[in-house]
């Protein structure tokens, strides 16, 4: 029963190798979908390209439903899966600035690795920027350390917050994602009537 590492069913060194394998899949998928190109990623913020929300929310609902059913079937203990605490103000302010960084750089920390690996010089610049930003964070951290944990709700999930059963929340998230995809498809047809269903390479 999963998670294998937490339950001691595999050795820690094996998880490192599996991390490499997960990374290969991750990078392969990002590049294949076109997310190693800053124009495709930033395109969502100019309402020109919707690859980011399509890939991201399809992945979320797939994993969401998968985790839920694996838990129901006794294959995966959902209580042992790791996620971070919710820090309201750092997440809102940090998230907004992160989004600004995303449209400015054209990437996020994962996709910029895929960009650099396929020869994008702007991807290497973003990697350099991330290290500079991380170093700045560390060097200034003692100044705002006291405020970082403001609005700490702890490890809380949507079902716990709302008191609604997980099954209903999951059904709601899936329905909202499918509704959003439907709206995106209609908007894309209006914007570009002659485009075919298959995504076209712009470059």
């Amino acid at each position, binding site marked *: 029963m999963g*998670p*294998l*590492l*937490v339950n001691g069913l595999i050795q*820690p060194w094996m*998880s*490192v190798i599996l991390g*490499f394998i*997960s*990374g290969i899949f991750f990078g*392969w998928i*990002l*590049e*294949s979908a076109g997310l*190693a190109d800053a124009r495709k990623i930033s395109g969502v913020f*100019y309402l020109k390209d919707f690859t980011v929300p399509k*890939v991201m929310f*399809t*992945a979320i609902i*797939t*994993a*969401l439903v*998968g*985790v839920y059913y694996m838990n129901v079937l006794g294959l*995966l203990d959902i209580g042992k*899966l*790791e996620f*971070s*605490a919710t*820090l309201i103000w*750092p*997440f809102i302010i940090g*998230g*907004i600035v*992160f989004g600004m*960084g*995303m449209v*400015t*750089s*054209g*990437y996020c*920390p*994962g996709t910029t690795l*895929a960009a650099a690996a396929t*020869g994008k*010089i*702007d991807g290497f*610049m973003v*990697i350099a920027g*991330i*290290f*500079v930003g991380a*170093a700045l*964070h*560390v*060097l*200034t951290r003692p100044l705002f350390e006291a405020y970082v944990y403001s609005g700490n709700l702890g*490890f809380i999930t949507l079902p716990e917050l709302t008191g609604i059963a997980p099954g209903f929340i999951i059904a709601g998230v899936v329905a909202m994602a499918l509704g959003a995809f439907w709206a995106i498809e209609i908007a894309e047809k209006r914007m570009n009537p002659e485009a075919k269903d298959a*995504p076209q*390479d712009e470059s």
Partner: protein
Amino acid sequence: MQEKAYKHPYLMGFFLGLTLLFTFYVTGHGLGASGGFYRLLAMVVHGVFPDAAGDAGYLSRAASFLYRSLEGPSPNHSLWLIYEGIGVMTGAFISGLIGGRVKWQTIRGETATPKTRLLFALGGGILLGFTSKLTLGCTSGQGLSGASLLSVGAWIFLLSVFAGGFMAAWFVRKQYQ
């Protein structure tokens, strides 16, 4: 070599969901990227200044914050994200080779100069690096992985990211035009 078209986004999203599910099943945590940058930085700084986190001085406090990212449940756990990052680069390179898309280039708009674009890339990267520790993860570790577990914070983070992206888009549009 002729560049091939990208794969269908919904299909790629489905495969990414399966990859995330596999990662949860094996390790108990999701995919991540920004944590790897911090751990690599921590390893390098720790290698150069192993005793920096000794006292209550300003830099000492900063160093002890950085070195905390090396602790984790086990030394392997700390390495995990770095190996995953190397995997991401490997996988993207293979996919790029197959698709004929590996080449040296600076992605930019038709009228934008490479210099403009690279300055925006550096500046945006600094914002990403600074904030992803504030939000306890980036779009992968906090957004994708947390949202799949219905974490309240992950959804707050994702909504804020989209809000911030739309707010700044107009101001940085020149590089893409």
